[in-house]
């Protein structure tokens, strides 16, 4: 059976060149980067080089790059770390209703610790409005955290504008760029962010490794304590293999990014067109200002999981809502925030394309999906009631 992977927003396969870059460091150059002997120095050098490379690509300096165990940790370190460091100055945080759970749940935790959080709404296209950010700013606002691109709809947020506002008001600004990095250009100065999270497994790197970019001078306290690694902000023996893989993956993803992403976007547009040609299918998120690989549609009268399972039975991997919230049954908080009805949110489908997808993949999906939709609709009491 043909297998078509259209869930690159959930995770990506590790690129063969990334595997090749990591491989020698498992068994040959395996030293602890903190050891002073030659085995350790080799690892230290590899970590240093990787850090330089990541910094260069993001427009940062090496000491502003802190490696974490992934996006969730980077988000938590940013949000809880700033809260811990600045709680003397204020206890108000601004975020949005469409953030990833790593951000939302960190904020909800802080609410239990005496912080006040404003969850900004979004418009029907899934975008935060800059006027809402401005209106939410209070004298005691210490942090704004708004994602760069949404993980469900791919909708891009006005990070530059928020960056400018944050600077004017001297508020620390974090962006969760986990979905953006590797798909669109990301430069920390251009965006005007103080903190930025990314995660390697979203751009053909390994799982379990990410970065928190921390602009020099940003006040932040660590969440856990131990050896002096990562300037004490994230102690523990460095996962040097992961770091090497992350840097290599980032380098590959950002080399000829325009060409690669244009190809992905062309396929995506074809897929989007085909899906929207099915009756009563509606696009979620902004039609243009979205990640090049993302389509998100609501298919009326059909429930998401049945759709995924049916596609899966024919070899096609897609998702509904966010794959990160395994076991969650609630309809997507992102789509609800955009004003979708429960039924529309529950019948959403996210298809996210990647570098290896082909036109045949798109044709295959467009071929099998309509009969599946028809079958499920015929099973649905809502379809008959309409």
């Amino acid at each position, binding site marked *: 059976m043909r297998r078509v992977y259209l869930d690159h927003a959930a995770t990506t396969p590790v690129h063969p060149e990334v595997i090749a870059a990591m491989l020698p460091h498992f068994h040959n150059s395996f030293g602890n980067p903190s050891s002073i002997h030659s085995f350790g120095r080799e690892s230290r050098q590899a970590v240093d080089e990787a850090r330089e490379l990541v910094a260069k690509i993001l427009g940062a300096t090496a000491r502003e790059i802190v490696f974490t165990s992934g996006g969730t940790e980077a988000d938590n370190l940013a949000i809880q770390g700033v809260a811990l460091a600045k709680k003397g100055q204020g206890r108000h945080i601004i975020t949005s209703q469409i953030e990833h759970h790593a951000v939302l749940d960190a904020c909800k935790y802080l609410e239990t610790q005496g912080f006040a959080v404003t969850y900004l709404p979004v418009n029907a296209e899934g975008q935060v409005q800059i006027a809402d950010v401005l209106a939410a700013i209070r004298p005691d606002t210490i942090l704004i955290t708004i994602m760069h691109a949404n993980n469900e709809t791919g909708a891009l947020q006005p990070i530059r504008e928020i960056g400018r506002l944050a600077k004017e008001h001297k508020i620390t600004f974090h962006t969760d760029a986990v979905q953006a990095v590797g798909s669109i250009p990301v430069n920390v100065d251009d965006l005007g962010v103080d903190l930025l999270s990314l995660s390697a497994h979203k751009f053909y790197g390994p799982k379990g490794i990410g970065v928190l970019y921390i602009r020099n001078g940003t006040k932040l306290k660590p969440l856990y304590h131990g050896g002096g690694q990562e300037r004490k902000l994230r102690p523990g023996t460095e996962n040097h293999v992961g770091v090497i893989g992350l840097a290599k993956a980032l380098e590959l993803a950002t080399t000829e990014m325009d060409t690669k992403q244009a190809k992905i976007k062309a396929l995506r547009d074809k897929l989007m067109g085909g899906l929207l040609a099915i009756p009563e299918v509606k696009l979620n998120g902004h039609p243009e200002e979205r990640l090049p690989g993302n389509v998100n549609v609501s298919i009326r009268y059909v429930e998401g999981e049945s759709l995924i399972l049916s596609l899966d039975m024919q070899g096609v991997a897609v998702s509904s809502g966010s794959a990160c919230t395994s076991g969650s*049954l609630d309809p997507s908080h992102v789509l609800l925030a955009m004003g979708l009805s429960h039924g529309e949110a529950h019948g959403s489908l996210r298809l996210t394309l990647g570098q290896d997808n082909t036109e045949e993949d798109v044709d295959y999906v467009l071929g099998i999906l309509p009969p599946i939709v028809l079958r499920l609709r015929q099973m649905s009491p809502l379809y008959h009631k309409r």
Partner: protein
Amino acid sequence: MNSYNEKVMDHFKNPRNVGSMDDADGIGEVGNISCGDIMRIYIKVDGEERIADIKFQTFGCGAAIATSSMVTEMAKGKTLDEALVMNNKDVASSLEGLPPVKMHCSNLAADALHAAIKNYREQKLGHKDISDAAEAHTH
């Protein structure tokens, strides 16, 4: 949540008794308040108060579809009283279990069946018209 057993997948792939009934004797519809999914059951009752025919329509997840299919299989041929003692757990165990986070999905099945039986009885007593199916909400 991501591993249904083979029996569940079989009922999801080839659901038994899907469809509607123009001349149903009873219709039950329930909505699941955990997830908002909806199930509707149509029954045809014979002279001995047995379920002679049964159909379902479901807007819901894989587990919801599989339990709908299973409950119709189990109910067919039973008397209404027999059908009323069947509960959601019985349906789940006939499917050889559901993943823990999916247990709540089996709540729809027996409840929709019971709602259909209730609807049938209310009509017989002349309380209600077939056209407004008994609607109920469950956990």
